[in-house]
């Protein structure tokens, strides 16, 4: 089984970020593997294992030829990567990104399954995987909290507000997985060393035949303004005077959880 995982390399969330003049996140420094995508990588490795063989290919679009995050995912066990890094990609909107990733999937060739996170952790619209699926003419199965593959078919549990739906499709498909769907492994020391020599196919927008459809020129979305998220409100404190439990039960009833 050949699984492609979309892997975003993002600025370290532990370091305060900054916006550039176009309201997009500055990505000049070292980039790391988006934790959201580590679930897809782990899921891919497990599925290939369960299938009794195959390969995991990573695809990533990132500035400055950045590979740090890719090396982490390669160290976890992915076989190879395709990296699209090109100044011409700066300013790409979600659809532009989806076009690039779809071309990468085609370049990878013979793909059974494309995995992505439901959304990235840094800047996101949550639309890229579905757009990519459309461009690839593959079904998009989203919000998977459990994935099974057998006999050329995939079955997922799709997270809903009430619980989950079971959704099935024939391969190949695009699947987005939720955070926490599997426990991502730590790369072993040998894995980290081996990752240094795994192939990373570095390509440009022109190599993918997308030169004029991406970047600022191709973008149809524009970020017109950014506002601070409201500070989290302090929670309600309940002093326990012996009837604390009643107040908590009342509160849970109000939320309709009990």
């Amino acid at each position, binding site marked *: 089984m050949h699984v492609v995982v979309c892997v975003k390399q993002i600025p370290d969330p532990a370091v305060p970020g900054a916006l550039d003049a176009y309201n997009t996140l500055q990505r000049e420094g070292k980039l790391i593997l988006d934790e959201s995508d580590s679930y897809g990588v782990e899921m891919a490795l497990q599925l290939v294992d369960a299938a009794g063989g195959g390969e995991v290919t990573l695809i990533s679009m990132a500035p400055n030829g950045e590979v740090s995050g890719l090396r982490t995912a390669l160290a976890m066990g992915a076989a190879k990567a395709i990296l699209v890094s090109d100044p011409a990609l700066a300013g790409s909107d979600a659809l532009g990104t989806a076009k690039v990733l779809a071309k990468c999937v085609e370049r990878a060739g013979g793909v059974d399954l494309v995995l992505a996170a439901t959304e990235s952790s840094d800047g996101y619209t949550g639309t890229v995987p579905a757009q990519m699926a459309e461009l690839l003419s593959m079904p998009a199965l989203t919000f998977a909290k459990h994935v099974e593959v057998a006999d050329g078919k995939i079955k997922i549990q799709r997270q809903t507000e009430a619980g989950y739906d079971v959704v099935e499709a024939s391969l190949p498909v695009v699947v987005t997985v939720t955070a926490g769907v599997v426990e991502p492994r*730590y*790369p*072993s*020391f*040998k894995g*980290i*060393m081996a990752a240094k020599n795994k192939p990373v196919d570095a390509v440009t927008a022109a190599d993918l035949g997308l030169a004029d459809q991406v970047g600022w020129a191709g973008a149809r979305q524009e970020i017109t303004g950014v506002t601070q998220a409201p500070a989290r409100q302090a929670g309600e404190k309940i002093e326990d005077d012996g009837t604390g439990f009643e107040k908590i039960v009342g509160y849970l009833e109000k939320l309709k959880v009990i």
Partner: protein
Amino acid sequence: MDFSLTEAERDLVGLCRDFAQKEIAPRAPLAWEEARCPTDLLREMGALGLLGMLIPEAWGGIGMTTVGFVAAMEQIGLADQSVAAAWQAHVTIGSLPLYLFGSDAQRERWLRPLAEGRALGAFGLTEPDAGSDARGITTRAVRRDGGWLINGRKTFISNAGTDMSFGVTLLARTETGDDTRPAYATFVVETGTPGFTTGPKMRGIGWRGLDTRELYFDDVWVADDHLVGDPAMGLSQFLRTLEVGRISIAALSLSLTQAVLDMALDYARQREQFGQPISKFQAIQFKLADIATELEAARWLTYRAASLRDAGQPFLKEASMAKLKASRLAVSAASEAVQIHGGLGYMLDSPVARFYCDAKVLEIGEGTNEIQHVVIARELGC
């Protein structure tokens, strides 16, 4: 001269930092509390390659330098000293006799599972009547039926009684009635060998997550292939192994000192008395400045000993100096760090108290500090 790390060493440090902060730090305190060796964590470290630290890849290890091992220890020990203690005992004294002195068949059979992290190694030297005076051991191995019959008792042995332990590499006397001088040889006794039993896990002031026990050998018969290396060289094999163990205890001491310094500094900045953070009082500042200065000195001594070993040069004196200096510092720094925390630091619920309890043994294990003095003085020519 500096001890800047290679790329592979930096990668190892990153891996250890990540695992220590995300897995060891949250999970190990409970194991300490329950006086239980967290072999789940040790197995996970094994899967990452960390249990084969100083063993070449050919035998299942990662072939790390001693400098890299010290740097890795600085991360692991920052999170928890018991896990770090079990880990380092396995990596150095638990594995090295088989690597340094074993035959290829013995390495394949016993070292590979240790290096690949599937089993835990132990080193059996100390006996109730022979600690510092290693020559005084009385555990005996005599020739019997084409093998050896072992009788005796070991004490304070780490890593031999867990659900992950492979057994023990032990030192026994082998001279016969005709010999005028004592002779010592190294043997492997595997868990489950008839006659080999262990006492209950001993209760220490600290290192409560470490499994330390008495081991009993009652007519334990092992085949000839369980004898490790030259049967006349057992004692020197054990002493050579301990040289590396001393660098390791020095590194463990560095990590403890860094941990308590970090905690004391954090607390001093946030605790207010007399209308200001206590870090504004010179009495507190000087304590912190002293610990930080001594830590830097001990760190350089430890990395120096490690880099000598990596360069294939003698490092006996430097390893003893590093162990002496760093373990003393760990004990005094832990005490001062508790002092800075006041009553809170005395309470076992505060992490600094756990590290305080863990400190004392650093002056005792793998050669007491008195013995380090003896070694250093001998090296000076006294």
